[in-house]
């Protein structure tokens, strides 16, 4: 996309964030829900279509462009991002990356328009980091699969109209090779939802269990049509998702730094603004360094991803670094705010709770470390 058009996109989103999302943040926190009016506005703006290719009715943004837009959106409460997050990211990308032409034509235009809200259902009560051990079963009966199992902590499940579901189609294969990815309409008989989870933060973003009880799904709903490739699809989806999470981290960094600077310049102690004290300056400077390094790593990784290079290691390194960096920044932001930073009246208190999730989902920090080190060792062994 030419830079003039992209600037216009980004400025429009920035303005929407300033004028609509940021003023509604406290209400989202209080009600534990994103107002429907805002969800509609997000839909009208076309935000659900960021990552769907243009020929299927989306904007077809490159990864670098998507990251730029997500960074703007997450200057406002990250719960707003969650509304579109699973549809733009992990919930739709399986189809974009590995779907058959018929699947793309059936689902992508409706996903892009925000008519269909997608969720990504991988995690289970007994399968978190070790997703390859998942137990949800899909047993072929004629031309349909019978699906049974429970999925846990599924973001946007309460509003989802479609699940990208990972289930084991080959009971003989215990590891990831026996897993297939299904497109499952949420209104299929046999699907029920658990009670909404009560979370530490990200109020307004909804997760819950999704229970599959003898759910019958046509075999043609396997993404890409071939059984056994589901885990590969999920991992490809997560590569992209990890860059997306880094962009989320950066948007939150931007806002935390803005708030910290403003507070440090306004708050006076010992007869001067606390920003004059070198120890406070040290915290501000460390925030900036964390932000700049995350930005540099994100830009480089997104560019290589867009160029079609193999970047799984880089995506893990980026997600790991970005989520840890924003954790440090949120911690310093609370410190700079002093007692006020511990009070719900100040937004840094909410940010501090909200950023905590970024180190956990879409692969914990430890899992990213494991992926990075294993790739390093593999490369060294074959050198």
């Amino acid at each position, binding site marked *: 996309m030419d830079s*003039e058009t992209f600037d216009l*996109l980004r400025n*429009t989103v920035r303005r929407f964030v300033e004028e609509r999302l940021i003023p509604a943040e406290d209400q989202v926190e209080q009600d534990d829900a994103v107002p429907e009016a805002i969800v509609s506005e997000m839909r009208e*703006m076309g935000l659900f279509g960021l990552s769907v290719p243009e020929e299927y009715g989306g904007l077809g943004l490159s990864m670098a462009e998507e990251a730029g837009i997500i960074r703007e959106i997450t200057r406002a409460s990250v719960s707003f991002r969650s509304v579109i997050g699973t549809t733009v990211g992990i919930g739709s990308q399986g189809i974009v990356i590995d779907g058959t032409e018929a699947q793309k034509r059936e689902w992508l235009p409706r996903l892009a328009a925000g008519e269909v809200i997608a969720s990504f259902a991988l995690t289970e009560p007994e399968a978190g980091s070790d997703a390859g051990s998942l137990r949800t079963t899909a047993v072929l009966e004629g031309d349909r699969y019978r699906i049974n199992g429970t999925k846990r902590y599924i973001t946007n499940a309460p509003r989802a109209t479609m699940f990208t579901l990972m289930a084991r189609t080959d009971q003989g294969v215990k590891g990831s090779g026996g897993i297939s990815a299904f497109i499952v309409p949420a209104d299929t008989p046999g699907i029920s939802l658990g009670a909404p989870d009560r979370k530490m933060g990200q109020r307004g973003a909804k997760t819950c269990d999704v229970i599959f009880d003898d759910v019958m799904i046509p075999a043609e709903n396997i993404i890409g049509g071939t059984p056994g490739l589901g885990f590969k699809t999920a991992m490809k989806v997560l590569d992209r998702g990890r860059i997306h999470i880094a962009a989320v981290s950066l948007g939150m960094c931007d806002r935390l730094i803005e708030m910290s600077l403003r507070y440090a310049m306004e708050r006076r102690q010992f007869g001067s603004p606390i920003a004059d004290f070198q120890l406070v300056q040290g915290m501000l400077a460390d925030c900036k360094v964390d932000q700049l390094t995350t930005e540099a790593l994100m830009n480089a990784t997104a560019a290589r991803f867009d160029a079609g290079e193999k970047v799984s290691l880089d995506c893990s390194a980026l997600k790991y670094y970005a989520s840890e960096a924003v954790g440090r920044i949120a911690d310093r932001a609370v410190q700079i705010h002093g007692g006020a930073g511990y009070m719900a009246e100040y937004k840094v208190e909410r940010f501090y709770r909200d950023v905590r999730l970024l180190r956990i989902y879409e692969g914990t920090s430890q899992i990213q470390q494991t992926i990075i080190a294993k790739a390093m060792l593999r490369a060294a062994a074959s050198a």
Partner: protein
Amino acid sequence: MKVLVPVKRVIDYNVKPRVKMDGTGVDLANVKMSMNPFDEIAVEEAIRLKEKGVATEIIAVSIGVQKAQETLRTALAMGADRAILVLTEDDAEPLAVAKILKGIVDEEQPGLVILGKQAIDDDSNQTGQMLAALLGRPQGTFASKVEVAGDTVTVTREVDGGLETVALKTPAIVTTDLRLNEPRYASLPNIMKAKSKPLANKTPADYGVDTAPRLKTLKVEEPAKRQAGVKVADVDELIGKLKVLGVVA
């Protein structure tokens, strides 16, 4: 009916302007620029007229530097059909702008020209009125409501004493006030499509207009810093203070 909507690229309304060191004007280097908010209201009103089936085509025009093209793209993304950029490096003054707009009106024959009542950079509040005079056509300024029926435009105006309603015969000139409408956000797909909408490049010379400034700016300075206030306990103390200041007798 065609509707012509002039839009100006101005310093963004969120930016705190800084005066240049030498006092010749406002420093615009690396400052965020956007469409004048009153012009956004004008574009929105034109789009609503089109949605009602009153307007058939919306033409956005901007007079300014090459970058004003971005402002036109915004108008196209919101819903204008095509755009005209009249390129000038001069800081075109209201009269020059009105003359160029007259040239465009003569060519395009719109039934309505909807302008912002003023631009937030110099707050002149002159262009619409000058254009109406140059064209010899009726004007409804400071509109808070616009209704079109046949060849009559009914404009509710915000005036000092309250609201005044005027009926104008088209072609007519309308300038927008803040409460006329709330402009929409351009949708992201429409922003992408805007780049394929037609945008014509013109110069003031095409309309026989010389945009060289006729006014001389002597000096631009920051408004005086506001002094800290004092709290008073009651009305008597207030009046006492005002007397000391010589504001009341």
